[in-house]
């Protein structure tokens, strides 16, 4: 983990998304799919926190050796600023952060799921899995065609890519969850990886739990530091002995978690069932709404 001043090589708008390539050999060297960067905001702003972005490409050889790419969708003040940063300016970067996706030893058929910009890190993962000789299929989705991030990359990397949009503007109409069972069956998925919104991840986790397919999900939680110090980025994780939950740091113990370990009820309501309520602690002042 390093903090560097990284030169921006290119900064490109691509529809709804924006991609940035930065020179960061120390980080590119070691970065793994699922890991992320913390990008510093400029001084004198009213917003202080670094913004976390998943690494979408880390080039270790060839003309782009030593560069990293990340991508982001429409957002708030921080990403608005980031969009104005031009080539040859510098970013304040900490990375690579967190634990990436684990690659299975004995499972060779992988289904990768990416929603919106989160497809980016799935392309990175696809590349790594392919290099290890795994079979990779993908589902990528989003509300509209605009929200689908670089489907062409998926086509290049995966045996099959299923695109779904809620409005049907690209691929088939529907959600990732709608096509999940069919695609898992069709591809014979032995392991599933997913990144995207938390409700989608929960739905994937529930399906994988029923089907006993191991799944790894990349969680996005608001975070203050990103490097393990503040315990603000926690995810509720079931204790192994079943005695309750622990709050683990998604920045350091995650952001990738084994989906069966997450105490989903304490994180996000279920789309399919009525929530059994939150099992986690209450406010510091008993001021709950």
């Amino acid at each position, binding site marked *: 983990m390093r903090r560097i001043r990284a030169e921006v090589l290119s900064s490109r708008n691509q529809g709804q998304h924006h991609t940035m390539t930065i020179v960061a050999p120390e980080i590119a060297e070691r970065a793994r799919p699922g890991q992320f960067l913390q990008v510093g905001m400029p001084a004198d702003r009213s917003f202080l926190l670094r913004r976390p972005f998943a690494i979408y490409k880390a080039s270790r050889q060839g003309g782009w050796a030593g560069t990293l790419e990340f991508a982001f969708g429409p957002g708030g003040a921080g990403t608005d600023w980031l969009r104005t940063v031009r080539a040859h300016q510098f970013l304040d970067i900490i990375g690579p952060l967190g634990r990436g996706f684990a690659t299975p030893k004995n499972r060779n058929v992988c289904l990768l799921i990416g929603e919106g910009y989160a497809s980016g890190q799935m392309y990175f993962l696809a590349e790594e899995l392919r290099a290890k000789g795994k079979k990779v299929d993908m589902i990528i989705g989003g509300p509209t065609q605009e929200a689908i991030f670089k489907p062409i990359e998926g086509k290049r990397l995966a045996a099959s890519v299923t695109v779904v949009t809620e409005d049907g503007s690209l691929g088939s109409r529907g959600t990732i969850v709608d096509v999940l069972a069919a695609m898992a069956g069709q591809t014979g998925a032995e392991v599933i990886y997913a990144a995207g919104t938390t409700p989608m991840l929960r739905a994937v986790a529930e399906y994988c739990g029923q089907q006993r397919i191991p799944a790894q999900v990349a969680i996005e939680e608001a975070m203050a530091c990103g*490097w393990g110090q503040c315990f603000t980025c926690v995810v509720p994780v079931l204790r192994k002995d079943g005695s309750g939950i622990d709050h683990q740091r998604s920045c350091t113990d995650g952001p990738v978690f084994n989906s069966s370990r997450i105490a989903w009820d304490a994180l996000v309501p279920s789309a399919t069932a009525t929530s059994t309520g939150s099992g986690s602690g209450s406010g510091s002042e008993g001021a709950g709404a």
Partner: protein
Amino acid sequence: MKPVLDVDLGGIPLRSPVMAASGCLRSIRDVHGLVDVRRLGAIASVSVTAQPVAGSAGPRVAETPSGLLHDTGHQNPGLDVFLAQELPVLARTRVPVFASVGGATLEEYLRVGTALAEAPGVVALEVNLACPSAERGGALFAHRSDHAAEVVGAVARSTRLPVFAKLTGDVADIVDIAGACIQAGAHGLTLIGSIPGMGIAPASRSPRLGAVTGWVSGPAIRPVAVRAVFLVSRAFPDVPIIGVGGVADASSAVEFLLAGAWAVQVGTAMLVDPDAPLEITKGIIGYLRRHKIADPSQLRLALRPARPAADGGSS
């Protein structure tokens, strides 16, 4: 003249007046390559309670203008795990540790305080009074001088280590509460913890924190903290005060030292910028050199009157 950075908090020598604030440097094994921990004057540990606390539901952090709104619900591993696993890692850095004592009852504070005071590496206790009392409907100990003094006095009497009382900024009369703590046996004061706040996201119409309300830290609260330090240090000039709340750069650290702080702690700024403590330390040295001041403690006496009195302030 070459200024020195050493400070002495009434018998506690520190190599620098810049400390890490409680709860903001919790996992030394994860700072490798980011923070040169040994340049810190001291580290305040996270507040420890007798039993492990799982803490509050997420989200635990949100931005506010020039500040953070956060609530961890006092998540900590509990006294036993802290002593066995976390404190030794802190101690190994050789940086003096201010062990932060939490609790929901007088007995808990006492039990945790006495145990932490025995542990190697701990040079002082910092009693975090921003804890809800289990016996008083969740009122914070820091909110009343008698409640605060009772806890601080009991912990101080139970150990020979110096005890710092850490107060909150959301009180009508901080000098009164500080005075009660000193009277009860506090060696010093840490001023201030975060101040209570809340945020609501208009888009989702829901509170920004899982805990609904939380604590504001960062530059936004700096004027509140500087005032607390100023008022208390004027009232008790011989009592060591650690200033905390929005220290973000050398200039804000100097602001606290001029207000009367003997040292400062850095929390939020370090979370955002791991180099902040070191940059602040360098900047203090530069300031002392430019102003021909021998060491940080001299700044306590260096505050000039407001304009227009006496020697003027517009320089």
